[in-house]
């Protein structure tokens, strides 16, 4: 039987603009924070394996082989270390590999760190770099970007299910409210529905990015990092750490077609559904057991569609739940308590680790006042790379 794997250390930097700093330092900052959280920096000598998640430092920062750099910056040689690149799902993929390293018996303690410094280039260049994960001939060469795909996706959803632009704004208002209370969020400013949808200046404040998506339907360009320490809960080493492990109850991934147009239904994110089903099976629970969730809302439409694919709501009804405030912090099923990618920010290589960092904080009861979910038992994170073509779902449990 595979050992139980838990998280005993969690670190995070304030997301925002770190473009004056070396991406390796930005990642090492959160590694330091994770060790301090776990009981002390000396614990880095107990680590058997390191996974560093990063999507494109070679393009954003002209730096490559970040795992070796982080190891050296943290004085952790000769610990084995590998870089994990899986688009914007790099972070959760690194956590999955950390889980597998422990479950396989090859390691007892694994450090997972993710980071990205994207604001070192212009916003236009950043959009282009992220778009390189699309199909080269059939998508990237056309000039298509991720906002473009999300715009087309949103229009189709609106046509089929009756979603409105105001519904998208309601999701943004909720996410910004949550981020305003989150110490680590990029945009800690609440917004009102009047300012971005109902008021006379809403068209100016909340301009179109990729119609029908507007600025407040889209995540900012963000720098930042997060780190986690995973341990074999059945190993004597688990006792070295001061905090009770938060158990990884389920973690699984799935893939879908590289080209979005080649999906049977362009509105179905099959890889989200499959990865969630596998994670539920591994955890021995179902969607009704989830207390709160961090869903990959690089565009707010994703928060809605992912919440349907993982079984929280019937297809085409998630926005009705948002209207009823069911996904608010005090609602029936809080979603994106951190502010989500929309407002906390989306440093692509860090995001998956950051989402799980938020699950750990909530399950430990360590979230800020006014942002803590009441008595959570299971938290879910969905992190995806590409336009939903490589998805990792993670379920953490408070035992």
């Amino acid at each position, binding site marked *: 039987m595979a050992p139980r794997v838990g998280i005993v250390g969690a670190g995070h930097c304030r997301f925002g603009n770190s473009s004056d700093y070396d991406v390796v330092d930005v990642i090492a900052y959160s590694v330091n924070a994770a060790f301090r959280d776990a009981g002390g920096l000396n614990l880095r000598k107990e680590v058997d394996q390191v996974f560093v998640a990063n999507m494109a430092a070679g393009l954003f920062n002209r730096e490559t082989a970040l795992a070796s750099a982080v190891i050296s910056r943290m004085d952790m040689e000769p610990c084995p270390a590998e870089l994990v690149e899986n688009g914007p799902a790099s972070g959760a993929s690194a956590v999955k590999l950390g889980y597998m390293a422990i479950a396989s018996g090859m390691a007892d303690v694994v450090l997972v760190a993710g980071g990205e410094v994207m604001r070192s280039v212009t916003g236009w260049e950043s959009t*282009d770099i992220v778009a390189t994960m699309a199909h080269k*001939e*059939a998508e990237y060469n*056309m*000039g298509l*970007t991720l906002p473009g795909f999300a715009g087309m996706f*949103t*229009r189709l959803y609106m046509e089929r299910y009756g979603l409105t632009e105001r519904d998208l704004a309601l999701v943004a208002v909720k996410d910004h409210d949550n981020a305003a209370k989150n110490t680590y969020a990029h945009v800690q400013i609440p917004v009102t529905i009047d300012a971005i949808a109902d008021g006379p200046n809403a068209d100016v404040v909340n301009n179109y990015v990729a119609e029908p998506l507007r600025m407040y339907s889209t995540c900012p360009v963000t720098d930042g990092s997060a780190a986690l320490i995973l341990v074999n809960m059945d190993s004597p080493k688990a006792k070295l750490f001061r905090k009770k492990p938060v158990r990884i109850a389920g973690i699984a991934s799935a893939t879908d077609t590289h080209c979005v*147009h080649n999906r049977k239904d362009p509105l179905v994110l099959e890889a989200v559904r499959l990865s969630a089903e596998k994670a539920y099976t591994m955890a021995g629970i179902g969607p009704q057991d989830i207390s709160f969730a961090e869903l990959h809302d690089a565009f707010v439409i994703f928060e809605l569609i992912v919440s349907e694919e993982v079984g929280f709501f019937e297809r085409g009804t998630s926005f009705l739940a948002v209207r009823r405030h069911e996904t608010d912090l005090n609602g029936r099923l809080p979603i994106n308590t951190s502010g989500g990618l929309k407002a906390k920010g989306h440093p692509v290589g860090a995001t998956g680790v950051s989402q799980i960092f938020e699950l750990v904080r909530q399950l430990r009861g360590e979230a800020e006042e006014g942002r803590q979910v009441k008595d959570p038992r299971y938290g879910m994170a969905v992190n995806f790379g590409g336009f939903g073509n490589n998805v990792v779902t993670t379920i953490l449990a408070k035992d």
Partner: protein
Amino acid sequence: MVDFSVYGEQTPHISAFRCEKCGTLYYPAPMVCRKCDSIRDPTTNKGWEEFDLEGPCTLLTWTRVWNLPEGFNRKFLMFGMVEFENGLRASGRVEMEGDPQIGMKLTATTIEADERPGKPVKVFVFS
């Protein structure tokens, strides 16, 4: 004397592929047929028929993008996803006055675009 020069305008095309063993159509090119497991050798395309993907198509969805990537010196571009009469789908640019409508009939042609550095690339235009 042989003249190796190439003169005259060449019309760009984007290729789709048909597996000759089972007839399944693909765009873009696959490496293996999902239906009969036939392998496509990208240097010869032996066993695969290559044909131009163009002509009548139906608009499935569209967007107007205002934050274009580096190199696109335009205010906005429209993009769309279409389905051809043979069932193949593609994404590309939409060019027309005003707003397109989902379900409208369009015609796909191919242009060469050079907004980004490097060699020009082939781009679908649905109009």
